[in-house]
């Protein structure tokens, strides 16, 4: 049984692996003679979000617009622009949408500060809960209070027992 399944498993695994590799590298990648520029290019196209396909970066998409933008990034690098100039170029044309790392500004305050607000709420709740537990612990009874508690429990014990409802 194991001997029969082996080749199937290997085939399936290699199929999955090749699929994963295809997904990671675009079909039409730009080529660079310069290795350093090539690595900058790879880093940049991984950094930007494809405008058409909501949850893919430029590197992982084969949509026509991603191909165009990769070409634009390659052109800008060949023209000697810095990484930051390439970022500014794309942001000026496609807006914050293409950035996976959005800037801190009024329209993104909720995005950046929201988690902090939730953390503060959580800390407040913890503080309240712990405080209440502490107060419950330190409640000690003096003689008079003890007697009072005992009296009420005695009284309750002496009250006539309720009959179970007749069935």
């Amino acid at each position, binding site marked *: 049984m194991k001997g029969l399944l082996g080749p199937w498993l290997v085939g399936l695994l290699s199929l999955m692996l090749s699929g994963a590799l295809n997904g990671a590298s675009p079909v039409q990648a730009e080529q660079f003679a310069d290795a350093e520029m090539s690595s900058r290019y790879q880093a940049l196209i991984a950094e930007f979000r494809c*405008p*058409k396909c*909501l949850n893919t970066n430029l590197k992982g998409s084969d949509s*026509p*617009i991603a191909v*165009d*933008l990769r*070409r*634009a990034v390659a052109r800008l690098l060949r023209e000697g622009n810095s990484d930051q100039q390439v970022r500014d170029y794309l*942001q*000026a*044309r*496609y*807006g*914050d*949408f293409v950035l996976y790392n959005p800037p801190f500004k009024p329209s993104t305050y909720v995005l950046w500060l929201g988690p902090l607000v939730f953390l503060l709420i959580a800390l407040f709740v913890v503080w309240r809960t712990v405080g209440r537990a502490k107060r419950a612990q330190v409640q000690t009874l003096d003689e008079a209070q003890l007697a009072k508690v005992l009296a009420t429990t005695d009284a309750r014990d002496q009250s006539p027992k309720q009959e179970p409802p007749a069935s």
Partner: protein
Amino acid sequence: MSRASLFVPLGLFLVIIGFGYAGFKLNDPHELPSALLNKPFPEFSAPRLADVGPDGATNAALVGREVLLGEPVLVNVWATWCPTCLAEHAELVRINREYGIRIVGLNYKDDALKAKAWLAQYGDPYALNLFDVDGAIGVELGVYGAPETFLLDAQGTIVYKRVGDVNPRIWRDELQPRLLQLEAMSAGVSP
């Protein structure tokens, strides 16, 4: 546990409902706000579609940003491979015929022969068509699909951008009021 804390789950529920309400009221997530709004239309250099021969080459001079200046203009990004462009085409023809608005086409990543045949078949509302064969002008404009339509004032500043089709509702609610405003402004300045 105080009585008030019994309302915490209700409060959380209302917050979640609020997020859901806001989320579903959002526009199409595919619709990007234009980063170029209130900025000048970028410089470009492109052949006119009419000058492009069957081999894709052009002998005539290229045109630039100056063809968009002088009066308010609609710049419509379109292509024959785009079904929504066909859907909006009749509306562009109507706007041009009834209101005499200048419309400049940007034929985006298209085949020149097919584009010319399309204009012959469905009518040509465009004052001229720019031919952007590789989408380079599209990238300058932040275009990520077709159709897209830009409204420019007489100085070539982008006043409004529509991603998707221009339909009678968009014309009535978005384009026409802005055009009237632009005309009123230029009328106020010129005398």
